[in-house]
């Protein structure tokens, strides 16, 4: 799926470079925003239905703490690296606030800075793809909380990969729950750092 998404993005990029579909330009930002709203609504309905059916994972204080620590670690990593990069600390925090949710964060950051949205997209995609390869290796030596932390909000695909290798399918539900808590924080963090 990741490769299909990258191919669609590349196709859009190529159309933009070639000047094709230029009539869409005045409406693009609005279409992206409303598509994001629709997507978030569908995800939220699914979460609500899971709880009604008794299949929703129960939140524990520890899971919330691990999710918050994942967010804090991601922001700390960005802050520590910012002095060595060509971006300000604020921009590094904005990029790191994406946490791997590229469809939402790239769209929001684009309105703030088009060039920074490129960094945000690469950050999110690379975090998801690398987590898919890293988590199955890390789960052999470490425990679920720190392993799931590498994926940020994009832990679902990588959790499945880790569960396939480890044989412990509970990491998938754990990853979804931690990822959901982190995902709830993404728009809050992006809004807060952009308005700084």
């Amino acid at each position, binding site marked *: 799926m990741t490769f299909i998404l990258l191919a669609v993005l590349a196709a*859009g990029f190529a159309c*933009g470079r070639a000047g094709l579909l230029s009539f869409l330009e005045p409406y693009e930002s609005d279409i992206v925003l409303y598509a994001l709203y629709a*997507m978030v609504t569908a995800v939220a309905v699914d979460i*609500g239905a899971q709880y009604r059916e008794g299949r929703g994972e129960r939140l524990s204080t520890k899971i919330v703490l691990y999710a918050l*620590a994942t967010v804090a670690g991601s922001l700390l990593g960005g802050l520590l690296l910012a002095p060595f990069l060509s971006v300000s600390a604020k921009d590094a925090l904005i990029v790191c606030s994406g946490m791997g949710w590229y469809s939402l964060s790239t769209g929001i950051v*684009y309105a703030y800075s088009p060039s920074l949205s490129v960094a*945000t997209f690469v950050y999110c995609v690379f975090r998801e793809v690398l987590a898919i390869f890293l988590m199955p290796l890390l789960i052999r*030596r470490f*425990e679920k909380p720190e392993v799931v932390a590498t994926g940020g909000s994009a832990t679902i695909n990588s959790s499945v990969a880790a569960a396939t290798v480890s044989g412990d399918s509970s990491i998938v539900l754990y990853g979804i729950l931690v990822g959901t808590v982190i995902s709830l924080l993404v728009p809050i963090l992006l809004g807060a750092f952009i308005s700084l």
Partner: protein
Amino acid sequence: MKIMLIYLVIMGAGIALGYRSKRLKSASRGRSLFQRACLLVILFLLGHQLGSDEEVVNAATSMGLTGLLLSLAAMAASFGVVLLLRIALEGRKPPQSGEKEARP
């Protein structure tokens, strides 16, 4: 801040709707296809916006490298912070005999 509030309201309303309405099943194929369609539209339009913006194209190499390095730093730091927190909350766990070592 306005965007943040809109997303929180949408998320809350969606969860409430899914919880209350018995007609809405979880893991619906139609909803899953709808989400994928939305995602593909978003990515195509974002790609189109990026491709038609000269500022973005000129910054693509440096910003791409920035994003890549930030993702490595964020992954390493979040792994380290959660590892320390887990040790503080649960203590060091001995390696589980058999199960983890037996994995390929």
